[in-house]
Protein backbone atom coordinates (compact mmCIF):
# COMPACT_ATOMS: atom_id res chain seq x y z
CA UNK A 1 0.00 0.00 0.00
CA UNK A 2 2.61 2.65 0.90
CA UNK A 3 4.04 2.40 -2.62
CA UNK A 4 0.85 3.79 -4.06
CA UNK A 5 1.46 7.21 -2.57
CA UNK A 6 4.76 7.95 -4.26
CA UNK A 7 3.18 10.16 -6.87
CA UNK A 8 1.41 12.69 -4.70
CA UNK A 9 4.22 12.58 -2.18
CA UNK A 10 6.68 13.67 -4.83
CA UNK A 11 4.53 16.69 -5.44
CA UNK A 12 4.42 17.42 -1.75
CA UNK A 13 8.20 17.41 -1.62
CA UNK A 14 8.21 20.67 -3.45
CA UNK A 15 6.62 22.12 -0.33
CA UNK A 16 9.58 21.16 1.81
CA UNK A 17 11.83 24.17 1.30
CA UNK A 18 8.90 26.56 1.76
CA UNK A 19 10.08 27.62 5.17
CA UNK A 20 13.46 28.77 3.97
CA UNK A 21 13.09 32.37 2.87
CA UNK A 22 13.93 33.13 -0.72
CA UNK A 23 16.27 36.05 -0.48
CA UNK A 24 18.96 34.83 -2.85
CA UNK A 25 21.22 37.48 -4.35
CA UNK A 26 21.52 37.84 -8.10
CA UNK A 27 23.71 35.69 -10.36
CA UNK A 28 24.82 32.28 -9.17
CA UNK A 29 24.01 33.19 -5.56
CA UNK A 30 21.14 30.72 -5.58
CA UNK A 31 23.42 27.75 -6.16
CA UNK A 32 24.47 27.21 -2.52
CA UNK A 33 20.83 27.46 -1.43
CA UNK A 34 19.77 25.02 -4.13
CA UNK A 35 22.42 22.49 -3.16
CA UNK A 36 21.37 22.65 0.50
CA UNK A 37 17.70 22.36 -0.48
CA UNK A 38 18.52 19.34 -2.67
CA UNK A 39 20.32 17.62 0.21
CA UNK A 40 17.39 18.36 2.53
CA UNK A 41 15.04 16.73 0.00
CA UNK A 42 17.33 13.67 -0.23
CA UNK A 43 17.37 13.45 3.58
CA UNK A 44 13.64 13.82 4.08
CA UNK A 45 11.85 12.45 1.04
CA UNK A 46 10.95 9.16 2.75
CA UNK A 47 9.84 10.94 5.91
CA UNK A 48 7.77 13.32 3.75
CA UNK A 49 6.13 10.52 1.75
CA UNK A 50 4.99 8.80 4.92
CA UNK A 51 3.80 12.08 6.44
CA UNK A 52 1.72 12.99 3.39
CA UNK A 53 0.38 9.43 3.32
CA UNK A 54 -0.74 9.89 6.94
CA UNK A 55 -2.46 13.18 6.16
CA UNK A 56 -4.31 11.45 3.35
CA UNK A 57 -5.30 8.37 5.33
CA UNK A 58 -5.76 9.50 8.95
CA UNK A 59 -9.00 11.47 9.08
CA UNK A 60 -7.79 13.28 12.20
CA UNK A 61 -4.78 14.68 10.40
CA UNK A 62 -6.26 15.74 7.09
CA UNK A 63 -5.69 19.34 8.21
CA UNK A 64 -2.00 18.57 7.68
CA UNK A 65 -2.36 19.60 4.03
CA UNK A 66 -3.44 23.11 5.08
CA UNK A 67 -0.66 23.72 7.58
CA UNK A 68 2.27 24.16 5.11
CA UNK A 69 0.07 26.47 3.03
CA UNK A 70 -0.76 28.50 6.13
CA UNK A 71 2.93 28.65 7.08
CA UNK A 72 3.80 29.78 3.55
CA UNK A 73 1.12 32.44 3.78
CA UNK A 74 2.58 33.63 7.11
CA UNK A 75 6.01 33.98 5.50
CA UNK A 76 4.54 35.86 2.56
CA UNK A 77 2.54 38.06 4.93
CA UNK A 78 5.76 38.99 6.73
CA UNK A 79 7.81 39.61 3.58
CA UNK A 80 8.32 43.32 4.38
CA UNK A 81 9.65 42.55 7.85
CA UNK A 82 11.86 39.78 6.45
CA UNK A 83 13.35 42.09 3.82
CA UNK A 84 14.42 44.58 6.46
CA UNK A 85 15.74 41.93 8.83
CA UNK A 86 19.55 42.13 8.81
CA UNK A 87 21.30 38.96 7.63
CA UNK A 88 24.06 37.89 10.00
CA UNK A 89 25.49 34.44 9.47
CA UNK A 90 26.23 32.67 12.71
CA UNK A 91 28.13 29.64 13.94
CA UNK A 92 25.55 29.19 16.67
CA UNK A 93 23.15 27.51 14.27
CA UNK A 94 25.59 24.68 13.54
CA UNK A 95 25.11 22.83 16.88
CA UNK A 96 21.35 22.91 16.23
CA UNK A 97 21.94 21.42 12.76
CA UNK A 98 24.09 18.67 14.28
CA UNK A 99 21.39 18.05 16.89
CA UNK A 100 18.63 17.78 14.29
CA UNK A 101 20.72 15.38 12.21
CA UNK A 102 21.23 13.23 15.30
CA UNK A 103 17.47 13.29 15.98
CA UNK A 104 16.79 12.36 12.35
CA UNK A 105 19.18 9.39 12.39
CA UNK A 106 17.76 8.26 15.72
CA UNK A 107 14.22 8.61 14.35
CA UNK A 108 14.89 6.73 11.13
CA UNK A 109 16.94 3.95 12.71
CA UNK A 110 14.60 3.69 15.67
CA UNK A 111 11.51 3.82 13.44
CA UNK A 112 10.11 6.68 15.46
CA UNK A 113 8.04 8.76 13.06
CA UNK A 114 7.46 11.70 15.40
CA UNK A 115 11.15 12.34 16.11
CA UNK A 116 12.22 12.07 12.48
CA UNK A 117 9.46 14.51 11.49
CA UNK A 118 10.29 16.96 14.26
CA UNK A 119 13.95 16.91 13.24
CA UNK A 120 12.93 18.60 9.97
CA UNK A 121 11.72 21.64 11.91
CA UNK A 122 14.88 21.68 14.03
CA UNK A 123 17.00 21.47 10.88
CA UNK A 124 15.08 24.31 9.21
CA UNK A 125 15.60 26.48 12.29
CA UNK A 126 19.28 25.53 12.38
CA UNK A 127 19.79 26.35 8.70
CA UNK A 128 18.04 29.70 8.99
CA UNK A 129 20.06 30.53 12.10
CA UNK A 130 23.35 29.57 10.42
CA UNK A 131 22.85 31.41 7.15
CA UNK A 132 20.54 34.30 8.07
CA UNK A 133 21.09 34.81 11.78
CA UNK A 134 19.11 34.74 14.98
CA UNK A 135 17.06 37.82 14.04
CA UNK A 136 15.65 35.89 11.09
CA UNK A 137 14.77 32.89 13.27
CA UNK A 138 12.90 35.27 15.57
CA UNK A 139 11.08 36.81 12.63
CA UNK A 140 10.08 33.38 11.35
CA UNK A 141 9.34 31.73 14.69
CA UNK A 142 5.56 31.66 14.28
CA UNK A 143 5.50 30.00 10.81
CA UNK A 144 8.09 27.48 12.06
CA UNK A 145 6.07 26.73 15.17
CA UNK A 146 2.84 26.38 13.18
CA UNK A 147 4.39 23.51 11.21
CA UNK A 148 4.35 21.42 14.40
CA UNK A 149 0.57 21.20 13.98
CA UNK A 150 1.02 19.14 10.81
CA UNK A 151 2.94 16.42 12.67
CA UNK A 152 0.82 13.67 14.20
CA UNK A 153 1.49 13.39 17.91
CA UNK A 154 2.68 10.01 19.25
CA UNK A 155 -0.49 8.11 20.13
CA UNK A 156 1.02 6.76 23.35
CA UNK A 157 1.21 10.32 24.76
CA UNK A 158 -1.69 11.93 22.91
CA UNK A 159 -4.15 9.37 24.27
CA UNK A 160 -3.24 10.44 27.80
CA UNK A 161 -4.84 13.81 27.03
CA UNK A 162 -7.66 12.92 24.67
CA UNK A 163 -8.86 9.74 26.27
CA UNK A 164 -10.11 11.26 29.56
CA UNK A 165 -11.79 13.97 27.46
CA UNK A 166 -13.53 11.30 25.41
CA UNK A 167 -14.78 9.61 28.59
CA UNK A 168 -16.00 12.99 29.83
CA UNK A 169 -17.92 13.59 26.58
CA UNK A 170 -19.52 10.15 26.77
CA UNK A 171 -20.53 10.74 30.37
CA UNK A 172 -22.08 14.16 29.70
CA UNK A 173 -23.93 12.82 26.66
CA UNK A 174 -25.32 9.89 28.60
CA UNK A 175 -26.49 12.32 31.28
CA UNK A 176 -28.21 14.54 28.73
CA UNK A 177 -29.92 11.81 26.69
CA UNK A 178 -32.28 10.60 29.47
CA UNK A 179 -33.46 14.22 29.90
CA UNK A 180 -34.56 14.09 26.26
CA UNK A 181 -36.40 10.83 26.73
CA UNK A 182 -33.69 8.40 25.62
CA UNK A 183 -32.76 5.95 28.37
CA UNK A 184 -29.08 5.01 28.32
CA UNK A 185 -26.72 2.59 29.95
CA UNK A 186 -23.25 4.05 29.95
CA UNK A 187 -20.01 2.10 30.26
CA UNK A 188 -16.89 4.07 29.45
CA UNK A 189 -17.09 5.06 25.81
CA UNK A 190 -19.80 2.53 25.12
CA UNK A 191 -23.30 3.87 25.40
CA UNK A 192 -26.12 1.39 25.22
CA UNK A 193 -29.37 2.75 23.89
CA UNK A 194 -32.61 0.76 24.06
CA UNK A 195 -32.07 -0.61 20.55
CA UNK A 196 -28.34 -0.46 19.92
CA UNK A 197 -24.82 0.06 21.18
CA UNK A 198 -22.83 3.11 20.21
CA UNK A 199 -19.10 3.52 19.76
CA UNK A 200 -18.07 0.00 20.57
CA UNK A 201 -15.15 -0.10 18.19
CA UNK A 202 -14.02 3.37 19.14
CA UNK A 203 -13.65 2.38 22.76
CA UNK A 204 -9.88 2.58 22.29
CA UNK A 205 -9.68 6.06 20.83
CA UNK A 206 -9.98 9.44 22.44
CA UNK A 207 -11.08 12.67 20.84
CA UNK A 208 -8.84 12.33 17.88
CA UNK A 209 -10.18 15.38 16.08
CA UNK A 210 -8.79 17.56 18.88
CA UNK A 211 -5.67 18.28 16.83
CA UNK A 212 -7.72 19.44 13.82
CA UNK A 213 -9.78 21.71 16.02
CA UNK A 214 -6.73 23.10 17.76
CA UNK A 215 -5.18 23.89 14.38
CA UNK A 216 -8.41 25.49 13.24
CA UNK A 217 -8.47 27.63 16.40
CA UNK A 218 -4.88 28.74 15.79
CA UNK A 219 -5.75 29.83 12.22
CA UNK A 220 -8.94 31.51 13.40
CA UNK A 221 -7.14 33.34 16.19
CA UNK A 222 -4.41 34.51 13.87
CA UNK A 223 -6.80 36.09 11.43
CA UNK A 224 -9.42 37.48 13.81
CA UNK A 225 -7.46 38.44 16.89
CA UNK A 226 -4.61 40.82 17.40
CA UNK A 227 -2.96 39.97 20.67
CA UNK A 228 -1.14 36.74 21.39
CA UNK A 229 -2.80 36.36 24.77
CA UNK A 230 -6.24 36.24 23.15
CA UNK A 231 -5.00 33.91 20.42
CA UNK A 232 -3.69 31.47 23.03
CA UNK A 233 -7.01 31.70 24.85
CA UNK A 234 -8.89 30.87 21.65
CA UNK A 235 -6.57 27.96 20.91
CA UNK A 236 -7.12 26.57 24.41
CA UNK A 237 -10.88 27.00 23.96
CA UNK A 238 -10.66 24.29 21.30
CA UNK A 239 -10.32 21.68 24.06
CA UNK A 240 -13.74 22.24 25.71
CA UNK A 241 -15.19 22.80 22.24
CA UNK A 242 -13.93 19.38 21.12
CA UNK A 243 -15.66 17.85 24.13
CA UNK A 244 -18.86 19.81 23.45
CA UNK A 245 -18.89 18.82 19.79
CA UNK A 246 -18.46 15.19 20.74
CA UNK A 247 -21.31 15.46 23.23
CA UNK A 248 -23.45 16.94 20.45
CA UNK A 249 -22.48 14.09 18.15
CA UNK A 250 -23.44 11.40 20.63
CA UNK A 251 -26.66 13.15 21.73
CA UNK A 252 -27.66 13.76 18.10
CA UNK A 253 -27.15 10.13 17.24
CA UNK A 254 -29.03 8.99 20.34
CA UNK A 255 -32.00 11.12 19.38
CA UNK A 256 -31.95 9.73 15.84
CA UNK A 257 -31.88 6.18 17.12
CA UNK A 258 -34.78 6.79 19.46
CA UNK A 259 -37.06 8.89 17.27
CA UNK A 260 -36.03 8.01 13.72
CA UNK A 261 -34.24 5.03 12.20
CA UNK A 262 -31.39 3.15 13.95
CA UNK A 263 -29.81 2.16 10.62
CA UNK A 264 -29.74 5.72 9.37
CA UNK A 265 -28.61 6.95 12.78
CA UNK A 266 -25.45 4.91 12.54
CA UNK A 267 -24.68 6.39 9.13
CA UNK A 268 -25.41 9.78 10.61
CA UNK A 269 -23.08 9.00 13.50
CA UNK A 270 -20.18 8.38 11.18
CA UNK A 271 -20.98 11.30 8.90
CA UNK A 272 -21.20 13.44 11.98
CA UNK A 273 -17.58 12.79 12.80
CA UNK A 274 -16.73 14.56 9.56
CA UNK A 275 -18.12 17.83 8.36
CA UNK A 276 -20.99 18.34 10.82
CA UNK A 277 -18.53 18.19 13.69
CA UNK A 278 -16.45 20.73 11.87
CA UNK A 279 -19.37 23.13 11.44
CA UNK A 280 -20.48 22.73 15.05
CA UNK A 281 -16.95 23.33 16.28
CA UNK A 282 -16.55 26.40 14.12
CA UNK A 283 -19.84 27.75 15.46
CA UNK A 284 -18.67 27.10 19.02
CA UNK A 285 -15.36 28.81 18.30
CA UNK A 286 -17.25 31.81 16.96
CA UNK A 287 -19.48 31.91 20.06
CA UNK A 288 -16.46 31.72 22.38
CA UNK A 289 -14.84 34.51 20.40
CA UNK A 290 -17.99 36.65 20.67
CA UNK A 291 -18.14 35.98 24.40
CA UNK A 292 -14.51 37.02 24.73
CA UNK A 293 -15.24 40.26 22.93
CA UNK A 294 -18.23 40.95 25.19
CA UNK A 295 -16.34 40.22 28.41
CA UNK A 296 -13.22 42.15 27.51
CA UNK A 297 -13.66 44.33 24.44
CA UNK A 298 -10.59 44.93 22.31
CA UNK A 299 -9.05 48.29 23.00
CA UNK A 300 -8.44 50.25 19.87
CA UNK A 301 -4.93 50.14 18.36
CA UNK A 302 -3.59 47.19 20.29
CA UNK A 303 -0.65 45.53 18.68
Amino acid at each position, binding site marked *: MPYAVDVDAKEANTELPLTSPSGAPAGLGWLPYA*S*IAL*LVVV*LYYRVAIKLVYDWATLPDYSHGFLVPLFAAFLVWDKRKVLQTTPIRQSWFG*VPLIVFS*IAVLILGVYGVELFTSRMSFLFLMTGLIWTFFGWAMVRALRFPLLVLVLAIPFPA*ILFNQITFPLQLLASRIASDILPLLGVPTLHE*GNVIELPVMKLEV*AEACSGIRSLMSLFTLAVFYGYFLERTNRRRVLLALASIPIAVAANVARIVGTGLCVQYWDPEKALGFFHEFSGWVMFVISLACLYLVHRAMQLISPVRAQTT
Partner: protein
Amino acid sequence: MRSPRFWLVIVLLASTAFILQSRGDADRIPISQPLSQMPEHFGGWTAQDVPLTDDTLAVLGKGDFLNRIYTSQPAATTSSTTRLAPVSLFIGYFASQRTGQTMHSPQNCLPGAGWTFDSQRYTGLQDINGKRYKVGEYVISNGDIKQFVIYWYQAHGRSIPNEYRAKLYMVADAIRMNRTDGALVRVITQVLPSESLDSARERATQFTQLMAPNLPRFIPD
Protein backbone atom coordinates in the same frame (compact mmCIF):
# COMPACT_ATOMS: atom_id res chain seq x y z
CA MET B 1 27.61 32.07 1.23
CA ARG B 2 30.81 30.37 0.07
CA SER B 3 32.07 30.32 3.63
CA PRO B 4 33.48 27.57 5.86
CA ARG B 5 30.01 27.45 7.42
CA PHE B 6 28.47 26.57 4.09
CA TRP B 7 30.91 23.76 3.39
CA LEU B 8 30.56 22.38 6.89
CA VAL B 9 26.76 22.21 6.52
CA ILE B 10 27.06 20.61 3.07
CA VAL B 11 29.43 17.95 4.44
CA LEU B 12 27.15 17.30 7.44
CA LEU B 13 24.02 16.92 5.32
CA ALA B 14 25.71 14.82 2.65
CA SER B 15 27.19 12.39 5.15
CA THR B 16 23.81 12.08 6.88
CA ALA B 17 22.21 11.32 3.52
CA PHE B 18 24.81 8.60 3.02
CA ILE B 19 24.17 7.14 6.49
CA LEU B 20 20.41 7.08 5.93
CA GLN B 21 20.58 5.61 2.42
CA SER B 22 22.80 2.79 3.62
CA ARG B 23 20.09 1.72 6.05
CA GLY B 24 17.16 1.26 3.67
CA ASP B 25 13.58 1.40 4.89
CA ALA B 26 12.47 -2.15 5.45
CA ASP B 27 12.90 -4.02 8.67
CA ARG B 28 13.80 -7.61 9.28
CA ILE B 29 10.65 -9.62 9.89
CA PRO B 30 11.41 -13.02 11.39
CA ILE B 31 9.27 -15.98 10.36
CA SER B 32 6.54 -16.93 12.78
CA GLN B 33 3.45 -19.09 12.81
CA PRO B 34 -0.01 -17.54 12.61
CA LEU B 35 -1.65 -17.18 16.00
CA SER B 36 -4.60 -19.30 14.90
CA GLN B 37 -2.33 -22.32 15.41
CA MET B 38 -2.23 -21.72 19.16
CA PRO B 39 -3.19 -25.07 20.74
CA GLU B 40 -6.84 -25.40 21.59
CA HIS B 41 -6.15 -27.58 24.59
CA PHE B 42 -3.68 -27.17 27.39
CA GLY B 43 -4.04 -29.02 30.63
CA GLY B 44 -7.74 -29.06 31.27
CA TRP B 45 -8.43 -25.97 29.17
CA THR B 46 -10.42 -26.01 25.93
CA ALA B 47 -10.59 -23.05 23.57
CA GLN B 48 -13.45 -21.34 21.86
CA ASP B 49 -12.65 -18.61 19.32
CA VAL B 50 -14.33 -15.25 19.76
CA PRO B 51 -14.28 -13.51 16.37
CA LEU B 52 -13.37 -9.84 16.39
CA THR B 53 -15.73 -7.50 14.58
CA ASP B 54 -14.55 -5.64 11.48
CA ASP B 55 -14.77 -2.35 13.38
CA THR B 56 -12.50 -3.66 16.11
CA LEU B 57 -10.03 -5.02 13.57
CA ALA B 58 -9.96 -1.63 11.87
CA VAL B 59 -9.02 0.03 15.17
CA LEU B 60 -6.42 -2.63 16.02
CA GLY B 61 -4.60 -2.19 12.71
CA LYS B 62 -2.44 -4.47 10.59
CA GLY B 63 -1.50 -7.43 12.74
CA ASP B 64 -2.36 -10.99 13.67
CA PHE B 65 -4.89 -11.38 16.45
CA LEU B 66 -6.07 -14.18 18.67
CA ASN B 67 -9.15 -13.76 20.80
CA ARG B 68 -10.25 -16.86 22.66
CA ILE B 69 -12.08 -18.03 25.70
CA TYR B 70 -10.63 -21.06 27.43
CA THR B 71 -12.91 -23.10 29.67
CA SER B 72 -11.70 -25.81 31.97
CA GLN B 73 -13.43 -29.17 31.68
CA PRO B 74 -14.92 -30.13 35.03
CA ALA B 75 -13.79 -33.75 34.60
CA ALA B 76 -10.14 -32.81 34.32
CA THR B 77 -10.06 -30.82 37.51
CA THR B 78 -10.03 -32.00 41.04
CA SER B 79 -11.55 -29.01 42.77
CA SER B 80 -14.13 -27.70 40.34
CA THR B 81 -14.90 -24.59 42.37
CA THR B 82 -11.54 -22.92 41.71
CA ARG B 83 -11.65 -23.45 37.96
CA LEU B 84 -15.21 -22.70 37.04
CA ALA B 85 -14.80 -19.25 35.53
CA PRO B 86 -13.38 -19.21 31.98
CA VAL B 87 -10.19 -17.37 31.02
CA SER B 88 -10.03 -15.05 28.05
CA LEU B 89 -6.80 -14.87 26.07
CA PHE B 90 -6.06 -12.02 23.69
CA ILE B 91 -2.82 -11.76 21.72
CA GLY B 92 -2.10 -9.07 19.18
CA TYR B 93 1.06 -9.63 17.18
CA PHE B 94 2.51 -6.94 14.90
CA ALA B 95 5.16 -8.15 12.48
CA SER B 96 6.23 -4.56 11.83
CA GLN B 97 5.43 -1.37 13.65
CA ARG B 98 7.40 0.70 11.18
CA THR B 99 4.41 2.34 9.55
CA GLY B 100 3.15 3.80 12.79
CA GLN B 101 1.27 0.64 13.71
CA THR B 102 1.29 0.47 17.48
CA MET B 103 -0.05 -1.84 20.09
CA HIS B 104 -3.13 -0.50 21.78
CA SER B 105 -2.75 -0.18 25.50
CA PRO B 106 -5.36 -1.97 27.62
CA GLN B 107 -5.03 1.11 29.85
CA ASN B 108 -7.20 2.81 27.20
CA CYS B 109 -9.29 -0.02 25.84
CA LEU B 110 -10.55 -1.33 29.16
CA PRO B 111 -11.69 2.06 30.56
CA GLY B 112 -13.14 2.75 27.11
CA ALA B 113 -15.33 -0.29 27.54
CA GLY B 114 -16.44 0.87 30.98
CA TRP B 115 -13.87 -0.82 33.22
CA THR B 116 -12.02 1.04 35.94
CA PHE B 117 -8.61 -0.02 37.22
CA ASP B 118 -8.87 -0.82 40.94
CA SER B 119 -5.28 -1.88 41.47
CA GLN B 120 -2.18 -2.52 39.46
CA ARG B 121 1.27 -3.87 40.14
CA TYR B 122 4.19 -5.30 38.21
CA THR B 123 5.31 -8.75 39.16
CA GLY B 124 7.12 -11.76 37.81
CA LEU B 125 5.89 -15.22 36.97
CA GLN B 126 7.60 -18.40 35.94
CA ASP B 127 6.08 -20.62 33.25
CA ILE B 128 6.01 -24.41 33.57
CA ASN B 129 9.43 -24.64 31.89
CA GLY B 130 10.90 -22.22 34.38
CA LYS B 131 11.20 -19.28 32.00
CA ARG B 132 10.63 -15.98 33.77
CA TYR B 133 8.16 -13.35 32.59
CA LYS B 134 7.72 -9.80 33.84
CA VAL B 135 4.01 -9.10 33.81
CA GLY B 136 1.49 -6.59 35.06
CA GLU B 137 -1.35 -7.69 37.31
CA TYR B 138 -4.50 -5.62 37.42
CA VAL B 139 -7.88 -5.78 39.09
CA ILE B 140 -10.58 -4.05 37.10
CA SER B 141 -14.23 -3.59 37.93
CA ASN B 142 -17.41 -2.48 36.28
CA GLY B 143 -20.26 -2.11 38.71
CA ASP B 144 -20.45 -5.38 40.65
CA ILE B 145 -18.32 -7.33 38.19
CA LYS B 146 -14.64 -7.74 39.02
CA GLN B 147 -11.98 -9.18 36.74
CA PHE B 148 -8.39 -10.15 37.23
CA VAL B 149 -6.12 -9.17 34.35
CA ILE B 150 -2.55 -10.11 33.46
CA TYR B 151 -0.91 -8.41 30.53
CA TRP B 152 2.50 -7.62 29.16
CA TYR B 153 4.32 -6.67 26.00
CA GLN B 154 6.41 -9.42 24.45
CA ALA B 155 9.15 -8.72 21.93
CA HIS B 156 12.43 -10.42 21.03
CA GLY B 157 12.31 -12.72 24.02
CA ARG B 158 11.72 -9.87 26.43
CA SER B 159 8.58 -9.38 28.51
CA ILE B 160 7.77 -5.85 29.69
CA PRO B 161 4.67 -4.80 31.62
CA ASN B 162 5.12 -1.03 31.17
CA GLU B 163 3.98 0.41 27.83
CA TYR B 164 6.49 3.29 27.82
CA ARG B 165 9.41 0.97 28.50
CA ALA B 166 8.08 -1.35 25.81
CA LYS B 167 8.10 1.58 23.39
CA LEU B 168 11.67 2.54 24.38
CA TYR B 169 12.84 -1.02 23.84
CA MET B 170 11.10 -1.06 20.46
CA VAL B 171 13.11 2.00 19.40
CA ALA B 172 16.32 0.49 20.79
CA ASP B 173 15.71 -2.83 19.03
CA ALA B 174 14.86 -1.09 15.79
CA ILE B 175 18.26 0.62 15.96
CA ARG B 176 20.21 -2.44 17.08
CA MET B 177 18.50 -5.25 15.15
CA ASN B 178 16.34 -3.46 12.57
CA ARG B 179 13.31 -5.26 13.99
CA THR B 180 10.04 -3.69 15.11
CA ASP B 181 7.91 -6.79 15.68
CA GLY B 182 6.16 -7.23 18.99
CA ALA B 183 3.03 -8.43 20.69
CA LEU B 184 0.63 -7.75 23.50
CA VAL B 185 -0.50 -10.73 25.56
CA ARG B 186 -3.55 -10.32 27.77
CA VAL B 187 -5.23 -12.84 30.06
CA ILE B 188 -8.48 -11.98 31.82
CA THR B 189 -10.61 -13.99 34.20
CA GLN B 190 -13.63 -12.98 36.18
CA VAL B 191 -13.48 -12.87 39.95
CA LEU B 192 -16.63 -14.82 40.74
CA PRO B 193 -18.81 -13.40 43.51
CA SER B 194 -18.34 -16.64 45.39
CA GLU B 195 -14.53 -16.66 45.27
CA SER B 196 -11.67 -14.62 46.63
CA LEU B 197 -9.40 -12.43 44.56
CA ASP B 198 -6.52 -14.81 45.26
CA SER B 199 -8.36 -17.73 43.73
CA ALA B 200 -8.96 -15.75 40.54
CA ARG B 201 -5.30 -14.70 40.48
CA GLU B 202 -4.33 -18.33 40.93
CA ARG B 203 -6.49 -19.33 37.95
CA ALA B 204 -5.14 -16.59 35.69
CA THR B 205 -1.55 -17.30 36.74
CA GLN B 206 -1.83 -21.06 36.25
CA PHE B 207 -3.35 -20.56 32.81
CA THR B 208 -0.60 -18.12 31.84
CA GLN B 209 2.09 -20.54 33.07
CA LEU B 210 0.65 -23.30 30.88
CA MET B 211 0.12 -21.09 27.84
CA ALA B 212 3.37 -19.07 27.86
CA PRO B 213 5.73 -21.83 26.58
CA ASN B 214 3.77 -21.75 23.29
CA LEU B 215 4.44 -18.06 22.73
CA PRO B 216 7.90 -18.13 21.06
CA ARG B 217 6.45 -19.95 18.04
CA PHE B 218 4.15 -17.01 17.35
CA ILE B 219 6.20 -14.15 18.82
CA PRO B 220 9.79 -14.83 17.68
CA ASP B 221 12.63 -14.15 20.12
